[in-house]
């Protein structure tokens, strides 16, 4: 039986995050977007104080213990406020995911409480390489075990939270020929010898989410920091992705909602030809269509998260949610800019930032082309 009403706890969570976002994040959004390489910890601090910087950490490890459905509600609100901040949170969730799913008790006790602390602790997720993006089987970062200690060599790119994270979840291969079966996941604490930050990536959008290259040169990792059973890292990665995609969809819905709400307000205030432009069907029908698509995408996100929370098959639903969320984000921001006209194109206009943020949504967490391949493989 489907139930579309939120629980009192979920309603309360939305109120809580709206208050934090309005008081502690929204006032600095422009600074975050225009900021230099220096990471501004204020939004992360605000979220950490509410134990919402990594909301999926189980209560047993000091976390908020939110399920994916509630986490999606949180990320829609953050996406509507600043997609960069939402991306920092999703990256923390991503990095913690393999530990929650397959980590040892020692790993969980060591790393998870960090992300649940009232201090803003970040985690990074290092997977993409210069020559291995969608084709992760082409991974070349090499891990070799010598006397119970792993030595990792390779370069990872587009590492969000890289260089400012307290730990990084890294994927490497023991044998490039062995592709999926050779893949392994490691926990790299910050400051581990041989781990260096390379180029800082200057991005078009989600600029708050600091993104760097990570260079591993003879990086030594103790065997106890290997995540999961040998040979299982590929499935662990896919499962982490399948869960993360639903959340990326939620961020997209948030971006779309913010653009829609801004354009709706503007269309009721802006007068042309002697009346508000909203009274023109060209405008009101566009907004009506957007509202329909936003609601559709939100329902797909909710369904995918419900499947995850109920331990049912969520792969296809998650990819659909990601496609729908990213597409509606791009469509809504483009339409909002058309409604605002030249004012929307100016730096400092929220819609201009939303449009730049929306653009990455079809690329991040696996491109939409990959999502379609995932869906097609199940047809």
């Amino acid at each position: 039986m489907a139930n579309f009403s939120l629980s009192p706890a979920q309603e309360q969570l939305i109120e809580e995050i709206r208050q934090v976002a309005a008081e502690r994040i929204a006032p600095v959004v422009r600074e975050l977007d225009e900021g230099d390489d220096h990471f501004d910890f204020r939004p992360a601090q605000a979220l950490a104080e509410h134990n919402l910087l990594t909301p999926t950490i189980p209560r047993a490890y000091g976390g908020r213990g939110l399920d994916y459905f509630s986490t999606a509600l949180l990320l829609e609100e953050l996406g509507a406020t600043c997609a960069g901040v939402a991306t920092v949170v999703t990256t923390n969730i991503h990095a913690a995911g393999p530990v929650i799913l397959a980590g040892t008790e020692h790993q969980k006790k060591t790393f998870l409480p960090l992300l649940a602390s009232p201090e803003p602790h970040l985690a990074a997720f290092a997977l993409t390489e210069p020559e291995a993006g969608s084709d992760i089987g082409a991974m070349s970062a090499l891990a070799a075990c010598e006397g119970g200690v792993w030595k990792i060599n390779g370069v990872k790119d587009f590492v969000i939270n890289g260089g400012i994270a307290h730990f990084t979840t890294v994927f490497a291969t023991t044998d490039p020929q062995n592709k999926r079966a050779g893949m392994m996941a490691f926990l790299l604490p910050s400051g581990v010898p041989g781990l260096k930050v390379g180029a800082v990536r200057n991005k078009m959008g989600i600029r708050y989410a600091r993104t760097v290259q990570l260079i591993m040169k003879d990086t030594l990792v103790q065997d106890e920091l290997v995540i999961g059973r040998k040979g299982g890292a590929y499935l662990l990665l896919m499962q982490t992705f399948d869960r993360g995609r639903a959340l990326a969809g939620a961020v997209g819905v948030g971006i779309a909602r913010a653009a829609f709400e801004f354009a709706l307000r503007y269309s009721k205030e802006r007068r042309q030809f002697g009346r508000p432009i909203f009274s023109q069907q060209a405008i009101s029908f566009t907004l009506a269509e957007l509202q329909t698509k936003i609601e559709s995408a939100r329902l797909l996100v909710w369904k995918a998260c419900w499947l995850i929370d109920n331990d049912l098959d969520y792969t296809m639903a998650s990819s659909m949610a990601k496609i729908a969320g990213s597409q509606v984000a791009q469509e809504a921001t483009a339409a909002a800019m058309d409604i605002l006209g030249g004012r929307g194109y100016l730096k400092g206009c929220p819609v201009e930032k939303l449009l730049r943020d929306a653009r990455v949504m079809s690329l991040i967490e696996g491109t939409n082309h990959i999502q379609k391949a995932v869906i097609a493989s199940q047809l």
Partner: protein
Amino acid sequence: MGYKSIGRQLQLAREEAGYSQEQLAAKIGCSQSTLSNYEKGKRRIYLAQLEKIAEILNKPIEYFLRPADYHRGEPESQSGEPGNQSSPAPKKKDTSYQANLLPILNMPGEDQGEKTALEQNLLRLFQSLSPAGQILVINFVTWLKEREVGCNGEF
């Protein structure tokens, strides 16, 4: 996306262990149709489920994840333990595979002339299978041949 080859390995391992889909599904606590979809690669198998299956079928997780060409000519590990992680098992010739293949290759009465398009396609398909898959095909063809011999008195 890789799940088709995982599913194929899963099917081979299940058949090798002598389980029907119903039997294995019951052991891991899922429906037969779910297991069937895992084997077809139509449903992503999650790690916890594959770990259960690996344990029941006495295979290491890597067995299911290796690329198809890695299995070709690779000896089957009965211990369930692969080699050292830093140095993968060497790709040796599978003698049992050769032993299964040779009788078919040496079968008398085969036309050794130029192959037709159908024969070439069959050969290509056959070659694209894993060694265990090829053995299944050989066994089936052998059985079929024996049945025809039984019917027609030829061979």
